[in-house]
């Protein structure tokens, strides 16, 4: 069968909502797109632990501390589910990690912003996890089976992340004047970067069209962003906080909130490595990887020694 025929059969299966599984034939570009997207997603979960990890030792109560600890642990698990999904496509874990540490692979730019106050932990759970959930719920229906299944697990775990974040914001908003200001300040700083998480606008996004045809993505960046804004405005109102966008306004005709222009220059600047924390995030990731090297090597040496000893025993017997 020619590649052209195979591609046609492949597209027909996608159109019929038949999931693609690991060992099945797929176009090279589909495989490459998935490896890139899934590994970027995995890197984001891993790097995403850094800004929040920053506050674990300084959480204001034991209740907040165990919640944050559990959340950060979940994110490590999410990274692992996703690396595993990428590996079903023939990627090697080592190579993926190397691409992250050498800056060859990207991760979500949102994690290049600093967490300067406790309210940032609330804002991250509420907005950043909220935006991630919107994207991930869509991806539970992605066409590649192992990716879709990883997303189902992840989405089940995510909902507590957003709720614990919102609860932090709620407590601060109902607190002293200073606490309320802290919450507002966090919203001011995280709002626009959260909207940028959905990626460039559809007009600018080069991959969107093919990804939609392959049903890797099922909604466009702009659709998801609009959906996120629509559902978040009421939550901000409930907190008594103001979203930092003077152009934000309900539009009766479209049934959506209109919103102001996003500063894409800032977005691309952070993507290119010039955000406030890009260098620090990579430095911390490299350090964690290097500091753990002896553990990985020792565990392997131990396992080899044990299996050699076991083999010797059976020979003697």
């Amino acid at each position, binding site marked *: 069968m020619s590649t052209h025929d195979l591609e046609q059969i492949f597209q027909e299966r996608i159109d019929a909502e038949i999931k693609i599984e690991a060992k099945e034939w797929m176009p090279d570009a589909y495989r490459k797109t998935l490896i890139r997207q899934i590994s970027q997603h995995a890197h984001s979960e891993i790097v995403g632990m850094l800004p929040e990890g920053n506050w674990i030792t300084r959480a204001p109560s034991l209740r907040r501390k165990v919640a944050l600890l559990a959340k950060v642990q979940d994110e490590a698990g999410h990274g692992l589910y996703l690396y*595993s999904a990428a590996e079903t496509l023939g990627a090697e*874990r*080592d190579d993926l990690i190397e691409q992250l540490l050498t800056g060859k692979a990207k991760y979500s730019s949102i994690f290049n912003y600093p967490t300067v106050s406790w309210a940032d932990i609330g804002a991250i759970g509420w907005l950043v996890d909220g935006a991630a959930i919107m994207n991930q719920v869509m991806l539970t229906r992605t066409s590649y089976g192992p990716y879709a299944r990883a997303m189902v697990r992840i989405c089940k775990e995510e909902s507590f992340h957003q709720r614990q974040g919102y609860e932090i914001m709620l407590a601060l908003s109902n607190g002293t004047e200073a606490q309320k200001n802290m919450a507002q300040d966090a919203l001011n700083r995280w709002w626009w970067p959260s909207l940028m998480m959905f990626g460039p606008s559809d007009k600018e996004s080069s991959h969107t069209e093919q990804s939609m045809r392959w049903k890797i993505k099922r909604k466009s960046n702009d659709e998801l962003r609009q959906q996120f804004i629509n559902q978040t405005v009421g939550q901000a109102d409930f907190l008594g906080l103001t979203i930092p966008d003077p152009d934000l306004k309900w539009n009766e005709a479209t049934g959506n909130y209109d919103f102001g222009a996003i500063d894409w220059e800032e977005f691309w600047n952070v993507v290119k490595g010039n955000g406030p924390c890009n260098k620090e995030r990579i430095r911390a990731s490299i350090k964690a990887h290097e500091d753990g090297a002896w553990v990985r090597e020792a565990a392997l040496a131990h396992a080899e020694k044990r299996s050699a000893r076991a083999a010797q025993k059976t020979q003697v017997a």
Partner: protein
Amino acid sequence: MKKNWPLWEVFIRSKNGLSHKHVGSLHAADAEMAIENARDVYTRRNEGISIWVVESDHITASSPNQNDALFDPANDKVYRHPTFYNLPDEVKYI
């Protein structure tokens, strides 16, 4: 030295009475570590009461390219299904 820990497939029994079900995979140096990692990664919310791990290399899978040859023979054997047999409606409990 660049060497990945081997890959393991993880199967979890969520409760007695149900089979173990594939939930995903992970890297571990040996079987014991694979069980411990599977506990940490896949059962943080009481998802299981029993874990199996199998080194991925030890699984032999049928090839999707041979699906026709493997599964076609079952397609034209309707007589393996109960609805193939015509019985009058009056006959009960069958």
